[in-house]
């Protein structure tokens, strides 16, 4: 399977559904080590994204159109730290997704773009207990899967699995970026909300690439 614009739209809509379904959990994680708004923030953003998609006079032509719409909408509706970070991630992803369909390598490029965007804005490296800890292993896994000849779906699935592991791996970490860093030692033992939402977003991409039943 290759990832086309229809897939991209399914991905985004599935993300919106998944974020809404997990809103409380994300907020609860943020309540533990942040300010308890991450679920609310992400849900506000992706609800707006879906509304924008629905309101388009004609369907988007390219994967990059979808990703750009996500980027600008998140940027202007999410606020907080996650808004600009995910906004920039999708913006950079859109820039590299300049083909009508993405193959395995294309997916890698998109994920690399996203990671680059997050790091350009947030300056976090791996191990600081942020969304980077989900996105960075996702990129690595994607590269491996693509190197092994995986198609878009296989690459995305590998990335999603690694993101999920990465998110869980934030539990023992001491936060040194974002709000959780104010807690010092007390940030240890909790899963990072941003890493968790990153894992949800990537998992939604896999669902979107499942053959329709």
């Amino acid at each position: 399977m290759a990832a086309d614009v229809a897939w991209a739209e399914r991905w985004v809509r599935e993300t919106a559904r998944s974020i809404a379904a997990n809103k409380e959990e994300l907020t609860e994680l943020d309540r533990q080590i942040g300010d308890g708004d991450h679920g609310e923030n992400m849900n506000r953003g992706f609800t707006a994204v879906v509304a924008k998609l629905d309101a388009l006079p004609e369907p988007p032509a390219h994967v990059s159109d979808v990703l750009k719409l996500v980027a600008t909408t998140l940027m202007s509706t999410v606020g907080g730290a996650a808004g600009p970070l995910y906004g920039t991630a999708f913006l950079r992803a859109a820039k590299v997704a300049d083909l009508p369909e993405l193959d395995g390598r294309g997916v890698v490029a998109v994920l690399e773009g996203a990671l680059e965007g997050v790091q350009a804005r947030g300056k976090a490296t791996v191990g600081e207990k942020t969304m980077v800890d989900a996105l960075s292993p996702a990129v690595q896994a994607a590269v491996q899967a693509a190197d092994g000849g995986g198609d878009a779906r296989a690459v995305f699935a590998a990335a999603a699995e690694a993101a999920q592991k990465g998110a869980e791996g934030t539990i023992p970490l001491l936060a040194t970026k974002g709000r959780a860093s104010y807690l010092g030692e007390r940030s240890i033992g909790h899963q990072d909300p941003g890493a968790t939402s990153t894992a949800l977003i990537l998992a939604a991409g896999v669902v979107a690439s499942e053959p329709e039943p």
Partner: protein
Amino acid sequence: MKKLLNDPADAVVESVEGFVAAHSDIVEAHYDPIYVSRVGGAVEGKVGLVSGGGSGHEPLHAGFVGQGMLDAAVPGPVFTSPTPDQIAPALVAANGGAGVLAIVKNYTGDVLNFETAVELAEAEDVEVATVITNDDVAVQDSLYTAGRRGVAGTVCVEKIAGAAADRGDDLAGVAAVATRVNANVRSMGVALTACTVPASGKPSFDLPEDEVEIGIGIHGEPGRHRIKLEPADAITQRLLDPVAEDLHLASGENVLLFVNGMGGTPSSELYVVYRQARKLLEARGVVVARSLVGNYVTSLEMQGASVTVLRFDDELTTLWDAPVHTAALRW
């Protein structure tokens, strides 16, 4: 959760509507995107001042819009930074031709969203300088954190920078004064209770009936450590000492002593804290030249207080005393 609100999703807009209706001689609101600005718009030739951030800290920031302080304030959702497309129009609206100073509390979200907004405003030919406030000594400023948070000291920056703009300083000058205030102000807070973000409906943290959180921020986030409840004098010392030490206050220096309520603590208790903080400063030989006591930078209905000390020099004292006419601060 018990609050005097309608749909939590409408809380920020409805509150702003009430606020500008009650203070229509001072402020007006713009909706979609939402921000609050001085009636009459930007003052020709004066440096404009804009601040903003998550809601839930009222009167910060909209309560400080008016003569001698801010020209515009941008409220985000509760405890969530506003977005660039909200902030940028406020920056543009505050520009009277002499440029705009953006005063931003040091939180990743606020900093990032203001960054983008400044780019957008600059694209519309507005000159913008940014000063980031980070007065909270509860956070060690080191490689291991996102840096100190901007808390109650932000009011001092807004008031004094506003006075500098009013007397005609240019953008670089106003920014320099703001930076100097930020460099000389420190705060530390305590929470007796958590607060509840309307949209989530749950207390921001769980605190046993006999414990308090020392070193809280203003977003209902937990503090650095918990202790058993102590008498006010002892708690005040836990707040004042780190502030005084971080400022390296020396005997004979003049300061502003600012005891800030977190929203749910009655002023009678704030004055008990003030009394002890003042005693501790005087014991250090420090002169409390000016005072401010009240709810100025809050965390919704949280019970607690913070102690802020600003080191004065003659110029800062004069600027502090300069007239201010806003909904929440007026003299």
